[in-house]
């Protein structure tokens, strides 16, 4: 198929692109098992995005309350990010890997400025799972210990290292044996971690709010207590902020809710500015020193590329400047209240509503109800998602700068949908 580079599409082009898009997906990628209806399928082909709206190839608009599972904290195609990325494209998208690239250095500096406590050494990569892989390697290297503690229903990624600390059997089982030396404890239970830590524990890895696990908010003393235990026992605390980082939960980083400074902080998703894939792990000078001995101990061809660094630098800047974490806190609190109102009205459909900032989960009574709700909202041109590790939870994760009327529309659509759900 010829790439549509410029100009508006004709109706015929729209039809062709839609049909070929579906066919190619089914032939060359993974088939979409559930979808049969071709006309319906065609409407599914996305074409452009702007702010909190996504348009399919026919120009139908959808309100994006899924936010690409957390990528689109700045919305789609934030003009400032796009402008900066374009300028970098005109100069040097990827790097020589030889000369020193100044853009990535600047992104590292900015991240250090805003990161909690004394975290200030960063390795940039291209995705969340890579950030976790790097953090695990660094934890072993710097502590000279080998064991990890993770939590039930934790989601840290799907490459073989991060998968080893992912706490869901369905993703792990077909790929065993993974890394040994990983212990799983219930999330939110600091005493369980205290019990599980041994002198061989290199790191405890935790999400500030479990995202894929169904938006689980831990008790307020959880992170401070785990911080205390790990510091006392000489284990590192790795905060997986891939989903919670950069304002999502109402503070710039999830751990900021409890004023905890982890030893390694992993970011991705929103760090992309919604434009260029980017991940990172950030740590202290002392811990990172283990990597200085041989910079080739951990390296990546595409890691630290200037195009991604441009997007990351812009994402940090815009998030801080526009006070998006505050906005997420305010809109999130208000949305939670309204959703709890819906829960009271529909107790047989909704079991619980929970969240922090604009990372919100609506737990339905069962998986089928979750699916039906998401489907019904899709019909009303609103995108939401299931949580990967807990499909009965419908996840709401809109851009942090979403216009408020769209959230009103979401509540209204939810109310309409809940009324007709078969409970």
């Amino acid at each position, binding site marked *: 198929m010829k790439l549509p580079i410029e100009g508006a599409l004709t109706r015929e082009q729209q039809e062709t692109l839609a049909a070929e898009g579906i066919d190619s997906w089914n032939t060359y990628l993974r088939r979409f098992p559930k979808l049969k209806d071709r006309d319906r399928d065609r409407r599914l082909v996305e074409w452009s995005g702007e702010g909190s709206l996504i348009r399919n190839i026919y120009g139908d608009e959808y309100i994006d309350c899924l936010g690409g599972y957390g990528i689109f904290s700045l919305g789609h195609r934030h003009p400032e990010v796009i402008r900066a990325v374009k300028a970098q494209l*005109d100069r040097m998208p990827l790097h020589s890997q030889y000369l020193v690239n100044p853009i990535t250095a600047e992104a590292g500096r900015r991240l250090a400025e805003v990161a909690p406590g004394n975290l200030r050494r960063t390795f940039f990569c291209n995705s969340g799972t890579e950030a976790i892989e790097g953090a695990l390697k660094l934890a072993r290297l710097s502590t000279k210990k080998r064991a990890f503690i993770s939590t039930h229903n934790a989601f840290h990624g799907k490459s073989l290292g991060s998968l080893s600390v992912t706490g869901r059997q369905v993703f792990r089982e077909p790929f065993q044996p993974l*890394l040994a030396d990983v212990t799983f404890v219930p999330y939110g239970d600091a005493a369980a971690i205290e019990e599980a830590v041994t002198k061989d524990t290199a790191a405890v890895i935790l999400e500030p709010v479990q995202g894929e696990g169904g938006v689980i908010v831990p008790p307020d003393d959880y992170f401070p207590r785990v911080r205390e235990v790990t510091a006392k026992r000489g284990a590192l605390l790795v905060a997986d902020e891939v989903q919670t980082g950069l304002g999502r939960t109402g503070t710039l980083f999830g751990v900021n809710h409890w004023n905890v400074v982890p030893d390694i902080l992993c970011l991705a998703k929103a760090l992309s500015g919604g434009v260029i894939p980017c991940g990172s792990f950030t740590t202290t000078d002392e811990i990172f020193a283990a*990597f200085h001995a041989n910079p080739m101990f951990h390296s990546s061809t595409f890691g630290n590329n200037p195009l991604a660094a441009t997007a990351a630098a812009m994402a940090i800047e815009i998030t801080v400047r526009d006070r998006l974490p505050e906005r997420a806190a305010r809109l999130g609190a208000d949305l939670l209240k309204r959703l709890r109102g819906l829960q009271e009205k529909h107790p047989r459909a909704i079991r619980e509503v929970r969240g922090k900032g604009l990372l919100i989960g609506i737990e339905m009574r069962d998986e089928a109800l979750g699916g039906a709700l998401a489907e019904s909202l899709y019909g009303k041109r609103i995108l939401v998602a299931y949580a990967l590790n807990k499909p009965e939870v419908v996840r709401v994760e809109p851009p942090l700068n979403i216009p408020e009327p769209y959230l009103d529309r979401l509540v209204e659509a939810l109310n309409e949908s809940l009324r007709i759900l078969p409970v």
Partner: protein
Amino acid sequence: MKNNMKRDVKPGGRSNGDQVVSLSAVRLAPPGKSSGGAVIKAAARSGGSLPASLTERRPAVRKSLKAAAKARARRASRPMPVEKVIKESQRWLDIIARHDRLSQAQKKRVVKETVKSFDAYFNSGFLAYRKAVAEAEQFASIEWTGQGTHIEDIMGRQYIDCLGGFGIYSAGIRHPKIVQAVKAQLEHMPLSSQELLDPLRGALAELLGEIAPGNLQKCFFINNGTDAVEGAMKLARLYTEKSGFISTLRGFHGKSYGSLSLMGKAEFRVAFEPLLQDVYFVDFGDADEVEWQLKKARDVGLEIAAVVAEPVQGEAGAIVPPDDYWPRLREICDEYDVLLIADEVQTGMGRTGRLFGVDHWNVIPDIMCLGKSLGGGVMPLSAFVSTPEIWEVLEKNPFLHSSTFGGNPLACAAGIAAINVTLTEDLPGQAAESGEYFLSGLREIQARYPEQVVDVRGKGLLIGVEFVDTEFGYTVASGLFRRGVLVAGTLLNAKTIRIEPALFIPKEEIDEVLNRLDDTLRGLV
């Protein structure tokens, strides 16, 4: 933990009385000294070698955890410097916007700040490692722009790029057609909604299905080579329901935990052990060894999912296997019922003079991994490709393997353009021809300096020049840098420098590089 951390992050800052920001309030600790004595010891224990430059650096003692906690608390009580970040970032935005109209003073400032930021916020080890800093006279070489086979630093110095970003620039730097496609896609939808269908992923998959060897047709797109190998390993385990792998000595497949487990050199493994357990290593280029390993495994009941190898070993120093190696691997894998995985991350997309490395021997692997140049040198992009039959196991539950950023529309636009450019400009054909020319020129040089140049080898434009020792190799690379040519050692074999220019490098430039190499060597002997 003592809670004197009043750093409640409120990005607005001013809404909270104690968050008035002043630049002088920002106090960063001095850049950490390099450390990692343990690492060096570990590498030494394993018999692994460390780069020569390392042995000179004195590792500092790691601070105790208590000191680390104190430092943490100190920095935590510091208010976030909101205004500083905004002001600084605005200054950078101005620099980016005026990238081609910077004054001399501005350029010098960028150089200074870059080196400082690398040192303080990134990996200072790289500064010593990179000849761009170590060997540049007055100003470190800060890369700024590039086009085709050339890179220009911020002071306007020109370099011929024979390193090719470790193999990503097969289509050169900023190929206009690829940049144009990416720019246009930025106007629509850079990353996918993850809910609706993104058409470019389908389109690229179709193109790749068309050009991939044999019945390799189904793809999964991700961001880099190591992820492609991770995915291939998972697919192999899922499909075969077995867990073991056979890899090669000095094989390089990446540095995340799965791909690192296949790494054929101790130096990169030891400090991160224990890795995946059931990986067995054989010599590269020796098919009998693979057969012997598989036979042993079968006799004692070890289960092997796949044999993984590079068509030409890249990081080991451009090692070309015997011509019957890959055909025999295919036969042996069939006989023992294990999958054959070709890691074409570096060799794919024309680098060795054929579209894929395995095409030299007409071998169709079961899974093929691509990366590096797949994104056209503009976007990170990688893939693993397999047959519909094997793929079936992934389709039952599409979430068994997925990625947030993988296959994003921006990368796919770059990939589509890269395939288009590779075929319209016949990059594989050009690589084959220029490779011969380059190799014969290098062999002439070898004949003139037989004591210093131990071997010249390669396929297409994946070329290795092996010197008598690591030290000498580094000196040659430095000499070439001063003469405006970028080359670098291979990761697992520092005696060998790699030559991996854009596949369309003109003959005159090859001559120029050969001249400068000859000049460098003449000055050294």
